[in-house]
């Protein structure tokens, strides 16, 4: 809402309060003033002049030499290049020494040899927002109404010696979508009274009811419809002051009739509409919902397809306006209009909102209806506009208002006690202080000795319906700054992270310490991306937004790895080739094709490694990462969570991953086996497609980790007897996995085997294509005594024998 400071002064005396001060007070009172605009952008010494003659410049085709009476005693000679300048016009004249916006000063000058004693100005040169002016006024000089007095300073004529406050209204304060509402607010903040505008109508002989009838057919959508009939208007331009005010408010002046409806809308917050009465068949007005298949042409000459939820004004048959949104072309007021049906109604906000949304037609009118208009202002606004039409369009206002009232608005009675106010705010206000606040707001109230206030809230403040609403009014007028600052009383509560929250933090700490950087990607993605790496989301249907902003962000992600690949490619394009990333986030899974209940949201951890393990240094070579780096990260995660013994890595074939370099992670618990993640190299074909080099990824469900993480550390006593270490190297079939080998060793060695570790794997050489050599270090120990060499040898022999039986393994010579 744009509020002219000078205009506001008509409803409340702002003497001694500057526009800036007012802006500050209004802001601190809860309505943010985005800015205070100075309308005069630096115009001085520009006055109204009368063009007495115009002649062609002797030496320039496009220039005219004008004689201008600017009230300076003698006529001025001014050279003017505007095409629309004519003798007999009233125009703005910048005198010698005048200043124009942009620090532009007018000097005596000769133009092609002819002296020019000033300049005739366009709207733009005066700093006026010429977008709101008719086209002919935009292109040439600004032509003023003929009755403008010569010599008058232009600032006065154009009303630019004014400031405009731009209010950023919250949805509850639609009462301030009107000058009167703002005046009441300013009155409450300053303690000054509000003066209402004149809205009486002179008596007339003819009765409106003889010309127009009104019927509301859809009473839930329209609670009041009132009309006046105005005869014999002359449609023409509005007076300059009225146009100035509309322009200051950002509304384009059109004609006196339309301008008056807009002016009164700004004044009262009540949208009005003027119909050409002679275009309404039979003078009948019926408010009803649209019928299936109906359509109409609106004022902007657009054909609108109507739907049955849209509210219409009709002549009993065809639509003549889209209620509260836009008038119909068939009943539009034009230059030849002489009789007017003036509408003031109260349409239901939700109905107007839905229509204006659907048709993408938001107007000053629809905005106000959407937020709700004040029933008590419908008739005063109608009368005010009718009065102005009589005065500025020469119309005769016929006797009476024709209206139907489905439901009248009523002021709300709301009770609140002083005790409640103080208990809620933590204040110690007195009865008197609260009374003063209600009085300033213009609320009538009764109060008794117990501190109970019964407040009659005026209907203009439809946002106040309950005790807390009143408490808020008290708080904001008392000043939030004056409310004390206290600690919470009552029992203390222990604060803590839940176990899953703590685990996620531990994971972040561990992974970052290991050199991985945490990334954060979007939860929505392209449908094609959602189809990649779906191993942990099998059977899940991607969930699509009803109205995505782009196809790239149209479905909810079902995995984290696809976005990690995008991040990798992004960074590689910026010459960051060594990548170690992880993300912790939710994925969204459903087996429904159309959601009827919320999807499952699963927490996941995913990571990506590519490039070198550690960057090259003067004393260290860069080594490329491989599968075991990625696996190592996961091992560290399970080690951290005390879950090492529960997890198996099993060779697996998974879509989009390298078939020979991929493992499924299987959790083995008392509850059974469950696949909880995967780790592997991105399939070379996909790497190529995504512009990546060898890239390793992993993804892991976090819920099983929350469930099985074991943070209870139980210290084991240090061994008291020495261990005996034996190494063996065996040659066996290349396909035998190290995990099976060590498992077999454990089983054969029995409980004296403390640990077994692979320390070398060798292929090639003389071993043959299908063989490999694996070197393993075994540590034997007895907890209660020193082992003898013989005991160990016996076990060790058993181990070698078993490996021979199970895998055909031979000791390497």
């Amino acid at each position, binding site marked *: 809402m744009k509020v002219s400071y000078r205009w506001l002064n008509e409803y409340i005396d702002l003497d001694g309060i500057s526009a800036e001060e007012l802006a500050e007070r209004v802001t601190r009172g809860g309505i943010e003033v985005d800015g205070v605009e100075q309308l005069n952008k630096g115009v001085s010494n520009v006055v109204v002049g009368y063009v007495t003659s115009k002649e062609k410049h002797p030496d320039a085709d496009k220039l005219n030499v004008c004689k201008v009476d600017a009230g300076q005693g003698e006529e001025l000679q001014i050279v003017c290049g505007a095409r629309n300048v004519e003798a007999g016009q009233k125009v703005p004249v910048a005198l010698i020494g005048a200043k124009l916006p942009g620090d532009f000063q007018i000097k005596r000058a000769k133009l092609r040899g002819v002296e020019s004693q000033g300049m005739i100005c366009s709207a733009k040169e005066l700093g006026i927002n010429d977008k709101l002016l008719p086209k002919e006024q935009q292109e040439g000089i600004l032509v003023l109404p003929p009755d403008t007095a010569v010599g008058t300073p232009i600032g006065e004529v154009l009303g630019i010696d004014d400031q405009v406050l731009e209010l950023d209204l919250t*949805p509850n304060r639609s009462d301030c979508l009107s000058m009167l509402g703002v005046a009441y607010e300013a009155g409450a903040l300053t303690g000054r009274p509000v003066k209402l505008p004149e809205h009486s109508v002179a008596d007339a002989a003819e009765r409106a009811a003889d010309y127009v009838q009104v019927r509301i057919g859809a009473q839930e959508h329209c609670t009041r419809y009132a009309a006046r009939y105005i005869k014999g208007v002359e449609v023409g331009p509005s007076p300059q002051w009225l146009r100035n005010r509309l322009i200051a408010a950002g509304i384009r002046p059109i004609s006196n009739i339309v301008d008056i409806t807009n002016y009164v809308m700004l004044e009262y917050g009540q949208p009005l509409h003027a119909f050409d009465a002679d275009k309404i068949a039979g003078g009948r007005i019926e408010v009803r919902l649209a019928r299936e298949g109906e359509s109409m042409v609106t004022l902007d000459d657009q054909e609108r397809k109507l739907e049955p939820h849209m509210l219409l004004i009709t002549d009993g048959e065809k639509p003549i306006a889209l209620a509260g949104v836009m008038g119909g072309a068939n009943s539009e007021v034009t230059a030849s209009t002489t009789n007017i049906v003036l509408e003031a109604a109260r349409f239901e906000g939700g109905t107007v909102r839905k229509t204006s949304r659907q048709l993408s037609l938001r107007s000053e009118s629809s905005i106000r209806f959407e937020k709700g208009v004040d029933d008590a202002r419908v008739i005063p606004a109608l009368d005010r506009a009718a009065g102005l039409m009589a005065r500025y369009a020469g119309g005769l206002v016929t006797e009476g208002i024709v209206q139907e009232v489905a439901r009248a608005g009523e002021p709300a009675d709301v009770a609140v006690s002083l005790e409640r106010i103080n208990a809620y705010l933590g204040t110690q206000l007195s009865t008197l202080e609260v009374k003063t606040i209600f009085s300033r707001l213009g609320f009538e109230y009764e109060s008794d000795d117990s501190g109970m206030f019964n407040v009659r809230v005026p209907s203009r403040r439809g946002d106040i319906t309950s005790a807390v609403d009143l408490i808020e009014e008290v708080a904001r007028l008392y000043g939030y700054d004056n409310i004390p600052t206290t600690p*919470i009383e009552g029992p203390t509560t222990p604060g*803590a992270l839940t176990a899953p929250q703590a685990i996620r933090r531990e994971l972040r700490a561990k992974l970052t310490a290991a050199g991985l950087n945490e990334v954060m990607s979007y939860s929505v993605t392209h449908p094609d991306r959602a189809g990649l790496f779906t191993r942990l989301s099998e059977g899940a249907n991607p969930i699509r937004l009803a109205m995505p902003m782009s196809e790239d962000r149209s479905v909810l992600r079902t995995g984290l790895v696809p976005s990690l690949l995008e991040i990798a490619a992004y960074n590689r394009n910026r010459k960051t080739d060594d990548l170690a990333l992880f993300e912790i986030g939710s994925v969204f899974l459903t087996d429904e094709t159309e959601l009827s209940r919320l999807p499952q949201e699963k927490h996941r951890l995913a990571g990506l490694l590519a490039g070198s393990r550690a960057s090259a240094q003067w004393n260290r070579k860069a080594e490329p990462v491989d599968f075991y780096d990625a696996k190592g990260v996961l091992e560290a995660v399970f080690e951290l969570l005390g879950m090492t013994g529960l997890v198996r890595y099993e060779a697996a074939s998974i879509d989009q991953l390298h078939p020979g370099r991929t493992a499924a992670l299987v959790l083995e618990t008392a509850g059974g086996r469950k696949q909880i993640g995967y780790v592997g190299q991105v399939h070379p074909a996909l790497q190529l497609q995504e512009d990546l080099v060898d890239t390793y990824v992993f993804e892991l469900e976090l819920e099983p980790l929350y469930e099985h993480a074991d943070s209870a550390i139980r210290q084991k006593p240090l061994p008291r007897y020495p261990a005996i270490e034996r190494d063996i190297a065996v040659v066996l079939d290349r396909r035998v996995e190290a995990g099976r080998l060590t498992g077999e060793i454990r089983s054969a060695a029995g409980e004296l085997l403390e640990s077994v570790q692979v320390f070398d794997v060798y292929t090639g050489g003389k071993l043959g294509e299908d063989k490999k050599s694996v070197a393993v270090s075994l540590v034997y120990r007895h907890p209660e005594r020193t082992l003898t060499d013989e005991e160990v040898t016996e076990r060790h022999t058993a181990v070698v024998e078993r490996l021979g039986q199970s895998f055909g393994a031979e000791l390497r010579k």
Partner: protein
Amino acid sequence: MKERLEALREEALQELQTVSGPQHLNDLRVKYLGKKGALTEILRGMGGLSVEERPVIGQIGNDVRGAIEAVIEEKQAHFQAAETENRLRAETVDVTLPGRKLPAGAVHPLNKVQQEIEDIFIGMGYTIAEGPEVETDYFNFEALNLPKDHPARDMQDSFYITDEILLRTQTSPVQVRTMKAMNGAAPIKVICPGKVYRRDDDDATHSFQFTQIEGFVIDRNIRMSDLKGTLLQFVQRMYGSQTRIRLRPSFFPFTEPSAEVDVSCVQCGGNGCRMCKGSGWLEILGCGMVHPRVLEMGGYDPEEVSGFAFGMGVERIALLKYGIDDIRALYTNDLRFLSQFARM
């Protein structure tokens, strides 16, 4: 014999002065003191001495040995010191060459800020509540006093999936879920961090996906002054004990009274600078007393309990804290950006 011993001492000591290195020293030790050395050679003749002479000559022999050994030891110590010094000189490193880098990754700046805020509130007795990012219209709007067609829904255009299910536009539904889970019990003191989504075109200050932290307290006799006290405590822990707050009346459908909260500018302390656009204040929070209808819908009696709620955008706080001028940097995941946050 005595003269021979004295002569030997003389000769040995003289020759030891010319010793050139540890090997030479060892040769001389063998030459004079070894099993077949000169001293032993002389003392072998002791057998021919009288009983009286023997101890005397023996004493002299020991003296000579002692004298030679002393010098040898001294020379040896000298050579060892020199050798140590040589070795140390050879082992000298260039201390200005860089050390071997330990791996160092960074927690994402949004999580870094979020954890810091969480820790402050945990210290104030709050727990952390979480809720789904895909929400029902009921929890996201209706239970928060935003019925369908409420004009305030304009404020946060949403990503719907069906008519009843959407990406949450705020973390406030977690308030409602928490109330329902607590089933009427008080006190509740939680903060609810999480991702939220709104139909905003991305630009330097807007992101369609962003992070909110909501705080929520319900108990008997919770007052608006408690809200002010809580927020002041929070911002002073976050930004330093000199930080001040200013509340401006505002509107949220789920709180009443509602306020926007400004903190004194974290850069200039309130004098006015570029960051606060000269005002001395930065807007970082919205807050208010929980609307009675929200309490009712959560299963609480507004006559019995009251509460406050507040919410902040983690991105905005991160932008201010780290001097980031474009919110999109937080979602671009450029490692040159992210790796700058690998610090305490």
